[in-house]
């Protein structure tokens, strides 16, 4: 089967610093593909190039066979690529429901509708509510986004991405800053989504990575040093040396 996303020779540098170099990656339909690596390995830079927030210096990105290398983020979103942000990136002074409603609206063609009340559009609100339900935030729909807890912000990040009805979900450290209990909850949420979505997951929480990932790619200093199934990665000597030191890989 053709991969949903394929990346060929992607390179991005900031001044003299090469953030990602010579990245080749194939994401299969329906898999959860984790990307791990130490801080500064270029994981977020890679995600940003996939979502269109950054333009690559070199290389190509194909989504379902079509080149999207120079497409702006809003167009990629319409094709079915959604991302969440490592540092919470939401419409904080709007309500939780408004955040998700906008995401649904974005996929419904244009929003040059000046007259009827956006918050009374049942079809949009229903889809939005469903996305909130999927991440367990439905009871908070009327709260202001800035009033949510950190864990709830992370959930809303995912709800907003889900509300765009993506085919490919790019998750940039969804568990960042979460306690064990909250992480556990989020792992369950992602597990429930797994049959319906292809996901790329950047995560430092190894328990989450090994619980969820079908395949894992390891990045160090902007380059991929290994890609494979969790078992292979766990026993890969290069990965151990470069990333994990001598410590044991726990988590399953």
């Amino acid at each position, binding site marked *: 089967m053709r991969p949903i996303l394929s990346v060929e020779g992607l390179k991005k540098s900031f001044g003299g610093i090469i953030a990602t170099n010579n990245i080749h990656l194939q994401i299969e339909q329906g898999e959860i593909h984790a990307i791990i690596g130490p801080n500064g390995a270029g994981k977020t830079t890679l995600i940003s190039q996939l979502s269109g927030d950054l333009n690559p210096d070199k290389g190509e990105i194909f989504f379902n066979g079509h080149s999207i290398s120079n497409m702006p983020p*809003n167009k990629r*979103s319409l094709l079915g690529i959604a991302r969440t942000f490592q540092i919470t990136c939401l419409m904080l002074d*709007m309500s939780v429901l408004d955040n998700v409603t906008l995401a649904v609206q974005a996929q419904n063609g244009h929003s*040059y509708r000046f007259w009827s009340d*956006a918050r009374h*559009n049942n079809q949009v609100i229903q889809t939005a509510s469903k996305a909130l339900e999927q991440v367990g935030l439905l009871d908070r729909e009327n709260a202001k986004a800035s009033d949510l807890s950190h864990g709830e912000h992370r959930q809303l990040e995912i709800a907003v991405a889900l509300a765009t009805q993506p085919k490919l979900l790019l998750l940039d450290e969804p568990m960042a800053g979460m306690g064990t209990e909250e992480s556990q909850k989020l792992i369950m949420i992602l597990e429930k989504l797994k049959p319906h979505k292809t996901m790329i997951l950047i995560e430092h929480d190894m328990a989450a990575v090994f619980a969820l990932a079908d395949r894992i790619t390891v990045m160090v200093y902007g380059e991929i040093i290994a890609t494979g199934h969790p078992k292979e990665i766990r026993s890969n000597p290069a990965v151990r040396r470069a990333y994990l030191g001598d410590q044991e890989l726990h988590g399953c």
Partner: protein
Amino acid sequence: MQILTNFSFQNRSVTLVFSVLFLLPVYTSLTGNEFYLDLVNRLMILAIAAASLNLILGHGGMISFGHAAYLGIGAYSVGIPAYYDINNGLLQLFLAVTVSGIFALVTGAICLRTKGVYFIMITMAFTQMVFFGFVSIEEYGGDDGLVINTRSSFGQLLNIENNLNLYYFILISLVACLFLIHKIVRSQFGLVIEGSRSNDQRMRSIGFDTYRYRLTCYVIAGCMCGYAGALLGNFTNFISPEMMDWSASGELIFIVILGGTGSILGPVFGAAAFVILEEWLSSLTLYWHFIFGALLIIVVLFAKGGINGILTYFGSGK
């Protein structure tokens, strides 16, 4: 009963404000105090201009320091045709709105590519260009301005040479503009504008070409302010480039912030406070701008919602 209890504070204040405005001519004709009518005319025109600025500034987060350009364009759209004895009101209003819209489209397309301080500076720069443009056109009075001998004519339909008719014409315009903004803000389009103010990066990430939406909003605000400018020309019977001096744009921002950004009645309260303070303070001292400044600082520091915020706080408490 249900309707009565659901009648929120905001609805009550809207009803109250417009009842007062509607009945004011009765009071002035009884007391023979025509002066108040003039004051309120100016207030209402400024309120329309400020409301249009509030749409982009308060709701859209686009801090334009050049909004007075549209007041000028609107006023000259009445003045220049009148100079050639073309008094057709519909034509003049059409000119005011379309020329303002085109100016907003062209300048907005450039301004909206910038952010923050750069946006503020570039909107101001465009307005200064219009300002100096009209200063240099001797035919239309240069910096001395131009007297409008005849107000817009609407045939048999409406005669605004009559001050009372003009008053109600402006009042109805104000109600219509505020209602229009009220609808826009709550629409899908309005939600996109709010979202783009709140977090433009995320809005693009979920699939919106926010630039186009912001530009559309910028044009709508320009058209509406151009309309206010046409009213202003009719009201003052005189136009000059001074109407679009950068300080005039500053005054509009002052009104919006004083009244309360992002609220429907804020611009009306702000304009009222502005007109009353200007009238009262300038009779007390030559340095009345000084007190204006101090007041703005107090509002910004202690009452973020402006006058509308203060009134809502006390009104809902009861």
